[in-house]
């Protein structure tokens, strides 16, 4: 069961399992990393880059073939997906009272998240992008 502790000491006391405490800590650690990764992503992709005029397939080929950006984007993808999905789990546990409905919603959400993550990972590591002729 998700918990709503406001302090680390309280979290340690309330955690129903070591795994639940690990998720509580993960949300804080990934949160700090994501502040830098996401704001860095926004700065490089939306502030200094004119995404409205300069984004096209050839530009994407250069970004997607860059090993540096592959690592950056893969870390960003994994941390944000795990952070976001665990956040959704807290919300599902809080607002869906019926155990049966909760289980179904979780199965659907986790399946969708898995498919999207697999698709993104394939796009980053399993694809050879060729520039337009």
């Amino acid at each position, binding site marked *: 069961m998700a918990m709503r502790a406001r302090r680390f000491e309280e979290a340690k006391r309330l955690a129903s399992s070591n795994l639940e405490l690990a998720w509580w800590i993960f949300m*804080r650690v990934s949160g700090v990393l994501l502040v830098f990764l996401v704001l860095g992503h926004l700065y490089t992709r939306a*502030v200094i880059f004119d*995404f*409205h*005029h300069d984004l096209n397939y050839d530009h994407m080929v250069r970004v997607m073939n860059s090993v540096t950006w592959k690592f950056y984007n893969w870390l960003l993808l994994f941390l944000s997906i795990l952070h976001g999905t665990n*956040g959704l789990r807290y*919300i599902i546990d809080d607002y869906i009272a019926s155990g049966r409905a909760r289980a179904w919603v979780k199965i659907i959400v986790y399946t969708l998240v898995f498919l*999207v993550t697999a*698709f993104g990972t394939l796009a980053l590591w399993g694809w050879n992008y060729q520039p337009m002729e």
Partner: protein
Amino acid sequence: MYRGREGQWAFYLHRISGVAIILFLTLHVTEISSSMFGPKWFNALLAFEANPIFGLGLVGVAALVLYHALNGLRIILMDFTSWGVKYQRQLWYGVWALYVVIGFPMLFAMLGHVFGGGE
């Protein structure tokens, strides 16, 4: 502890922005990854997204992300310092002060891309 006051608004805004961000994230990853389908598909997708409505949507998501990031740091201060819970309301005002300082330049840059002429 702080029902109906700033702390509860901070909490609900954090949840609502979080849900909106993960929804956007799944669409965004799918959209960007579809560059695998090649130039014809991807440039057609970009032409569809050239409508300023999508640009404004990105501005909206960026606004939610900035709040979620700054309030997340406030939560961490509340969790790991001895004074964070006591000053959570002041911290929330700090979140909004930083929000304006960081957000306005971002807003103008992004609106400049969406409504500017390019180059």
